[in-house]
């Protein structure tokens, strides 16, 4: 089937416009990060007239960015790993077994995705504060509290995508393993997991991204010591001025690893979505 000339031109024009729409903000971030403070406070210029990497140096001392980064890294990686481990077990059950409540479980877990975050935030805030008072634990304003909260955020989508992935692994492999005397857990770890590695990596990255970018709970459930970068970047706007060049530099630094990870794995996301969403 050939593409007509009109279609080809329409395609070129539309895709160019879309590419510009995506690129301009990214360019604004990169180019502004390379400007000195006076230049980002004056009228916008497309080309940095005094290119400098000073913002990338200053950003570490204007706000405790290092501490925020460590907090974010810690919270996001621990939450991602635990959440994926739990999702693997649940997805294995849903994919390989028929049991009473299977449908109910899937629907309940997925539907928690639609609840407004603020609905849990207020009670969770109260629960954490009151637990601290009565039990002496410290979940409120702690990284542990944040980890527990975040790992449930990515759980529904992770389960859903892994079920899609596991379903696409032929059952004959399970049966072959069973013939060799492998029990269900052995089948999961020796047969299914190795086959599903791309899917598991993709889901881990997704869980990491979810925690990395979360703002609502982080803005309430953290203090100066446990603050994550998602809310920490606010520190660059002070009463008197906003360090826009440093904001852009910091945004760039905290975005590059996640974007690179996502783009490297995007085809596994597409595969997972194809398996999951299209049914």
């Amino acid at each position, binding site marked *: 089937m050939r593409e007509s000339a009109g*279609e080809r031109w*329409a395609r070129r024009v539309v*895709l160019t416009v*879309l*590419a510009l729409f*995506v690129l*301009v*903000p990214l360019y*604004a971030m990169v180019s502004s990060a390379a400007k000195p403070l006076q230049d*980002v*406070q004056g*009228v*916008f*210029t497309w080309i940095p007239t005094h290119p400098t990497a000073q913002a990338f140096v200053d950003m570490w001392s204007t706000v405790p960015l290092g501490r925020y980064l460590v907090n974010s890294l810690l919270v996001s990686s621990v939450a991602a790993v635990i959440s994926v481990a*739990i999702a693997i*077990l649940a997805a294995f059950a*849903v994919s390989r*077994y*028929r*049991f009473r409540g299977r449908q109910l*479980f899937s629907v*309940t*877990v997925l539907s928690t*995705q*639609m*609840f*407004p*975050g*603020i*609905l*849990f935030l*207020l009670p*969770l805030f*109260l629960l954490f504060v*009151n637990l601290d008072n009565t039990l002496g634990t410290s979940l409120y304003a702690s990284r542990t509290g944040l980890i*527990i909260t975040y790992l449930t955020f990515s*759980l529904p989508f992770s389960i859903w995508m892994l*079920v899609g992935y596991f379903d696409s692994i032929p*059952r004959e492999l399970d049966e072959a393993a*069973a*013939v060799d*005397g492998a029990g*269900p857990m052995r089948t999961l770890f020796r047969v299914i997991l190795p086959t599903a590695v791309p899917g598991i990596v993709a889901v881990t990255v997704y869980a990491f*991204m979810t925690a990395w*970018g*979360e703002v609502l709970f982080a803005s309430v459930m953290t203090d100066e010591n446990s603050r994550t970068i998602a809310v920490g*970047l*606010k520190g660059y706007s002070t009463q008197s001025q906003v360090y*826009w060049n440093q904001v*852009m530099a910091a*945004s760039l630094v905290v*975005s590059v690893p*996640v974007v690179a990870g*996502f*783009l490297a794995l995007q085809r596994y*996301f*597409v595969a997972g979505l*194809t398996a999951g*969403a299209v*049914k």
Partner: protein
Amino acid sequence: MSSSVVERSAGQRRTLPGGPPPRRRRRPSLPYLLLIPALVLELGVHIVPMLVGIWMSLLELTQFHIRDWSTAPFVGWENYRVTLDVDSAAGKELLHSFWVTIVYTVISVALSWVIGVTAAVFTQRPFRGRAFLRALFLTPYALPAFAAVIIWTFMFQRDNGLINHVLVEQLHLVDEPPFWLIGPNSIVAVIVVTVWKLWPFAFLCLMAGLQNVPTELYEAAAIDGAGFWRRLRSVTLPMLRPVNRVVLLVLFLWTFNDFTTPYVLFGGSAPREADLVSVHIYKSSFVTWNFGTGSAMSVALLAFLLVVTAVYLLITNRRRFDA
């Protein structure tokens, strides 16, 4: 989903000597054991807090009772009466915020979907640079949401932003640089940012959906002399219907509940014209420290979303059987 039970019949077939004795007993408890961690967490962080939230909405939970909420007096429907009464000041503000959110959500979702479909259709056919374009298009989705919004906050600055530089100094479309983050333009600003972040997700899902459309359908349509629009209307869009059903719902719920975009864009103090309901509830809870009314508003919001979702699923389900 047509998975079958993993029958534990393998043990009976096994003839290898020396292994553990074959277990004939099926273990119906295993799937439940596997689900326990997920269930405990979902219960602990979502279901229980939600029930607690419903209970809170019936209490007079002001700052005096937050440290020890068992002392908060039970007030029944009082919080709902105060917040949902459209004749009271608080009720009027909530209703206003609700309408702003509806307008914002519908426009953002519609635009994101249209752009997503367009991009997915135009990148369906292989061409040079397609992989690069796809990666580029997905970047706004991969970018942490707060970073994406901060970039736009900078671009929307009145005196040193990119948008006004282009509008005023380069294109000379307006004489006076407009304000984007306060006043009536703020709703436009928040929609633009949302669409920028959101359309790649629609694109990603629709791209995945298009891979399931058999090429024979297009070939058959071309033989019948169908042009671009005809193929789009009679082949592509009908084949995408199952994906659309899910994608539109997810986009709607995400956008409606989105907190990051308005919160980061307006720095916590949203202008009245863009007073989205998530920030509205957040502000009225944490500024006045009245968690009772905040919970009542959240519960009302949840009820609304449940009704919308149920109606949507019913309607799209019926249409699916009609088709």
